[in-house]
């Protein structure tokens, strides 16, 4: 089994099975460009630095990729905007502990940076789900967002939104 080492922004090393990394468009491109697949060169032993991903987040990303090993990888640049996507139970349980917190958001940003389309889609959908049927104040409370509005401003937005009710 070929292992490739990923290095997080806080310099933690994560040896990862080569096969898993095919889910990440960013890492796959790096591997190809740096000839890391060529076992006859010194490059094969080179670690891949990921300066935009912290260790605890990278650990979660790897955990997710391990579970989804062998899943078909999405091709192309088009983001799936389908509102009907259902987050599978395993992924829901995976996201839940970090939901409403910085960690889930950082995981989403990492999925975008690493170009892991399935993770990005599910992660964004999980965030969307937390907004569904909620009012602005409820969203603020759940996600810990400070209230910047005056009561008059909130009332103005509420009135502007009435047409859609």
């Amino acid at each position: 089994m070929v292992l490739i080492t990923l290095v997080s922004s806080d310099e933690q090393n994560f040896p990862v099975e080569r096969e898993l990394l095919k889910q990440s468009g960013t890492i796959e491109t790096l591997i190809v460009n740096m000839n890391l697949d060529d076992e006859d060169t010194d490059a094969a032993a080179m670690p891949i630095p990921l300066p935009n991903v912290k260790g605890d987040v990278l650990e979660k990303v790897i955990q997710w990729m391990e579970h989804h090993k062998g899943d078909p990888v999405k091709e192309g640049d088009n983001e799936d905007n389908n509102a009907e996507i259902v987050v599978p139970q395993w992924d829901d349980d995976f996201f839940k502990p970090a939901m409403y917190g910085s960690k889930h958001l950082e995981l989403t940003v990492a999925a975008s940076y690493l170009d892991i389309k399935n993770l990005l889609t599910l992660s964004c959908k999980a965030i969307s789900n937390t907004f569904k049927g909620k009012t602005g104040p409820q969203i603020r409370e759940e996600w810990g967002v400070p209230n910047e509005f005056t009561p008059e401003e909130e009332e103005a937005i509420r009135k502007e939104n009435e047409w859609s009710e």
Partner: protein
Amino acid sequence: MPAMLVTDLPPELLRIVIKKLPLADQLNLRSASRGLNAFVVSEIKPATCQLVHLSVEQVQSDTVVVVAVLQNRESALHLAALDELHADVEKPWKESLEDHPVHLTAESLSWFKTLLAGCTIDRATIVVDHRTQIEEIPSLLAQLQTRSVEFVLRDVVQRDMFRLFRHSHFFARLAATAVKEITFVADDTYFDRKLANGYAPGDCAYFEVLEQVLSNGITHIRLRVALGLESEIEESLLPFLRTISLAAYDVDILIKASLFSIKEGEKVYRIGNEYPRYRVTVYKFQQRHYSDEFRIQTLKEDEEADLAPIAL
């Protein structure tokens, strides 16, 4: 490093999140934070606001009501973000209109020029009474690139409902806009028979108004009248046809009215061979809840006419 907030998500990720939400939930996000408000509005507001239909009604000397039928729900944001103009936005189901009407009350027509900047409205209905600042209308329609305008005449005080149009070169100014078709609806004013007491049909002089409209280059005219047109047709039709024939106007005039004493049929009129032929048709509906139709159309050279032209 401070903890990341949902409002700190980069726009490209926020966009993915929002696209997965129904419109109502997207709008709810607006009141979560200023940043989300600005982002949601910019994301769901179409670049242009397309209105299927617009009607403007002046209900007080300084107040007008606009009913705008929008092509899509998102377009309402163009109109709804105007709270400082005392915009009243009503829920769609309160109206029987098939799309998404938005009612607005504002202080004057000039507000609507600002309000509807960038909008194109193909067909507009404007309710006119003696308080209407009619001189403002052509510039509004020019801005909206309106092609068809309907004037609903409501003037129970002034018997001459066209009085407002006759002055100030209104039709000339209207013809300078994109308006190609004009409709007058004058059936509400005299629907109440009490109001029609003492009314002399000649006061309205419909054919005189038609002449004015035609002479300014608007040749598609529709007129809906409840009462009082029959005697004017009998008195004024032939002089009117002579006038438009001499000017060689290419016309399509449809009048809907109750034509009790005028017989159904078709006639073709012409002054002489070098002048256009005009077909005048009268169609009477058996069911009285339809208005009878009286139509004057220019016959094209290649159009067959079974009837021999009547000399004017």
